[in-house]
């Protein structure tokens, strides 16, 4: 396939690739995942079952997959980018037709033996597709307004489908990731401003599409004490847990809010709250530091990439990771409404972890193949 695109030089041996893998990043990621396993152990009141053990096994499997992806040639990724996107989009559309309803939202597709979540797949696919698109454009081209039509369609099509499920968190993530990617690709700020204005103008329209529970969440965010036993309960209890954790926390397994079930969803979306309750501000900052390290790896890898595609993939993956972290922590600390975004590598759940690890695999592939130059023209379809 690579040959058909006229890319043949610069083959790297497997040994070279393995040596180039960023083992430091894997170490940081593993430490983060272990923090997650420890918190899940605590969330189950000091039991490995039902969460911690499974999460650890998943991470192990994810690690193998991640290294496997890191070894895939960046050029192959480039050539598959649109294909992957197409499959993801088709599956998203399929969810509309045959998706099963879980957690009040149609998110899973049942393939008989296992369920997959196309919206998670799309997070990676969109990064690849946009990177592929901008890889084929010269800087001048991408400053043209005309060149914005295709990427906007690439973003809005899955975003609309995801929103219909309805999954506001993922839709927001898709759009924010794309915005970051477009900025990195060189789209001018004033165009962004124009889109932002258009977006704001669309807010009343979008409001119509929101489900009642989503509107409720926004109301609740604006005034959590409005209904302390109802919709505002989660945010209020989360803030109580965080605040009562103080500087040093209540100690491992001693979080009263979490262990006495005042904190909802403590093993998934609100796991950061539990960490910060048991280990205090120090614990929260430590986890933030780990995330920051991962982000720094992402930026450095992005800067070192020779091809536009690789650079954009690195930027997109890093931005996705950042958005996960930011939305989750901002929501559990009451800065933004609860939109249901998990904390990467820490929250219980396989799908988000797969997305992140596939993303980090791509990031490592970028690093492994950092010296590969891909002609921009050649990739233009």
């Amino acid at each position, binding site marked *: 396939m690579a040959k058909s695109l006229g890319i043949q030089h610069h083959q790297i041996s497997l040994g070279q690739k393995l040596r180039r893998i960023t083992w430091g990043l894997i170490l940081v990621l593993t430490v983060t995942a272990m923090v997650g396993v420890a918190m899940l152990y605590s969330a189950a009141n000091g039991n490995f079952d039902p969460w911690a053990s499974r999460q650890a096994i998943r991470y192990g499997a994810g690690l193998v997959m991640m290294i496997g992806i890191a070894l895939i040639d960046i050029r192959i990724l480039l050539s598959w980018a649109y294909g992957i996107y197409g499959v993801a989009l088709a599956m998203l559309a399929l969810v509309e037709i045959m998706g099963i309803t879980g957690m009040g939202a149609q998110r899973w597709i049942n393939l008989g033996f296992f369920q997959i979540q196309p919206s998670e797949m799309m997070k990676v696919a969109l990064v690849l597709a946009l990177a592929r698109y901008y890889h084929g454009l010269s800087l001048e081209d991408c400053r043209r307004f005309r060149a914005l039509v295709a990427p906007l369609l690439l973003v809005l099509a899955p975003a609309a489908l995801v929103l219909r499920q309805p999954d506001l968190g993922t839709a927001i993530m898709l759009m924010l990731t794309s915005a970051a990617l477009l*900025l990195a690709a060189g789209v001018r700020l004033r165009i962004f401003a124009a889109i932002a204005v258009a977006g704001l103008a669309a807010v009343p329209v979008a409001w119509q599409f929101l489900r009642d529970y989503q509107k409720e969440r926004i109301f609740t965010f604006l005034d959590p004490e409005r209904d302390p036993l109802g919709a505002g309960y989660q945010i209020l209890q989360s803030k109580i847990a965080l605040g009562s954790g103080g500087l040093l926390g209540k100690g491992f397994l001693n979080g009263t809010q979490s262990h006495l079930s*005042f904190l909802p969803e403590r093993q998934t979306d609100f796991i950061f709250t539990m960490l910060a309750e048991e280990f205090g501000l120090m614990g929260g900052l430590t986890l933030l530091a780990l995330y920051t390290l991962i982000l720094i790896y992402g930026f450095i890898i992005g800067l070192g990439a020779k091809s536009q595609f690789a650079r954009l993939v690195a930027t997109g993956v890093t931005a996705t990771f950042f958005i996960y972290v930011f939305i989750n922590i901002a929501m559990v600390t009451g800065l933004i409404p609860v939109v249901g975004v998990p904390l990467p590598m820490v929250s219980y759940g396989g799908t988000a972890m797969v997305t992140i690890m596939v993303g980090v695999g791509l990031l490592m592939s970028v690093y492994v193949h950092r010296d590969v130059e891909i002609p921009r023209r050649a990739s233009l379809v």
Partner: protein
Amino acid sequence: MLAGGQFLLLSSLVGRLYYLQVLQSDRYAMLADENRINIKLLPPPRGRILDRHGEALATNRLNYRVALVSEHAKDITATLDALASLIPLSKRDYQRVLRDARRKRDFVPITVRENLTWSEVSRIEVNAPDLAGVVIEVGQTRYYPLGATAVYITGYVAAVSEDELTGDPLLALPDSRIGKSGVEKIYDLALRGKAGNSQVEVNAYGRVIRELERNEGQPGDALVLTLDAGLQRYVSARIAGQIASAVVLDIHTGDVLALASSPSYDPNLFTKGISTEDWNALLNNPYKPLISKAISGQYPPGSTFKMMVALAALEGGIAGRSHEVTCRGEVDLGNRTFHCWKRGGHGKMTMVKALEQSCDVYFYDIALRVGINRIAKMARRFGFGELANIDLYGERPGLMPDRDWKLANYEVAWQKGETLVAGIGQGFVQATPLQLAVMAARIASGGTAVTPHLSRRALRRATEDGAAETGPVFESLGLSPASLDVIVEGMTRVVNNVRGTAYRARIDESELAMAGKTGTSQVRNISKSERKTGVFKNAQRPWEERDHALFVAFAPIDDPRYSISIVVEHGGSGSSVAAPIARDILRETQRRDPARDGSLDRLAAVANNSNGG
């Protein structure tokens, strides 16, 4: 630029965490504790009530309850069926349990039945393996060993009503009890004790996870009464079957040794929650068992009042002991005729003889000479018309009329005829049995203001701490011993002289002999025609129109220690009905005497040290 933006946003998260976890930490820590800590009150055991010898008048009994925890019982109805094969369960029990099971959280025990007997408890315990979710709980209920015998003294406890809530958290507990009458009510605060508390950690659903802290409360103080339970039992038995009251006082101390009314009721009915049928039966009983007649019943004192009239005359210098009146059986005043109880009259009477034979005409004469105001003044010194301030609720003051009172209440001047009637303790004059016993005590004590009480606690509080160990010292009423001698001599002859009205009720043992005064108070006027035809014998009249029989007495005569009053409603004559009761009781009281000395003070010390239990 992107990286810069991201780090900026991350720092905003750090700032937010700092704000929540450092700046607002105290506020949220408090909110977290409010979330998880529930404070449960631990009711302290209520103080016991003891008689002067340490016999229990009110104790706490273990109340075994069977309860159901629905989360452990797989099928509630099936479990109840299994339980019903062991202990009787009513349809109402079923309905209540099923209703509670729907309403309450499934880890909250639902009481199925209370007050289980030992055999019921053991039957349940033996079958425990088949009764998943069934638990036996132990609570405390008040128990009155003397039951109906001492109810007007102990009173009873029952569920706290809305207007009795004072802010003491103990009272707000669902199964708390408060004193509703008797010493249970008047000493409620001391008996109640102080609530302990248990701080428990609960989860978001209210389930108790563990106990964090436990402060045992302070049990209620034991209350030692002056009552003699044995004597009380005797007195109650002696007046049983009649509508009667009896009060026995220790003249030296004012201790109430016995205080009884009949018919009575069992306070234990109330502690478990009285049934509507029982309650209505008590409420509608024409003999009013719910009322403590000894302190709330107000009766015309009849001839027992004659001592007051005589004293007023003696002390006022209006008539001496040798003052003579000839009784011809009746006396005319204006256009009315006032009769003596003895048809044909007593002939020539002196004061002592007039008391002895209870000559009405003699007292008409001196009452008229003394006047109502001076009689009232004297009577009030002996406790008429005012509360004796015994430590019980529901005491009534009786009535001691005078000219001002008549004018204020009837807007008509006092009539001379009314003075005559008052002179024999009829008309407006009313007194409680307690007041009559106090009067007798004040006469027998040589004219001191003996004041009755059921507990020395009140006295001790009035004086300095523990200063009342030797017993109270009563003020003198300021009467001349010569005047009192006349009264005592008269009362002695009432019982011990052949012509005395209570001679047949005398105590034969001379060292136990009593002095007393009979009283027969009319409930209605006797019409002229009845007098002529002779249809005014008690036995011929309907019960509620018969006379009240009264008797007041003290003993022993030489060194009086005990005073007594007996009132039998519609009982007939004081001499034939009330006096024999007084004789029996005073004899029993003195027979029990040696055991009494000093025991109360010793016991009070012991009880306070051990703090009840």
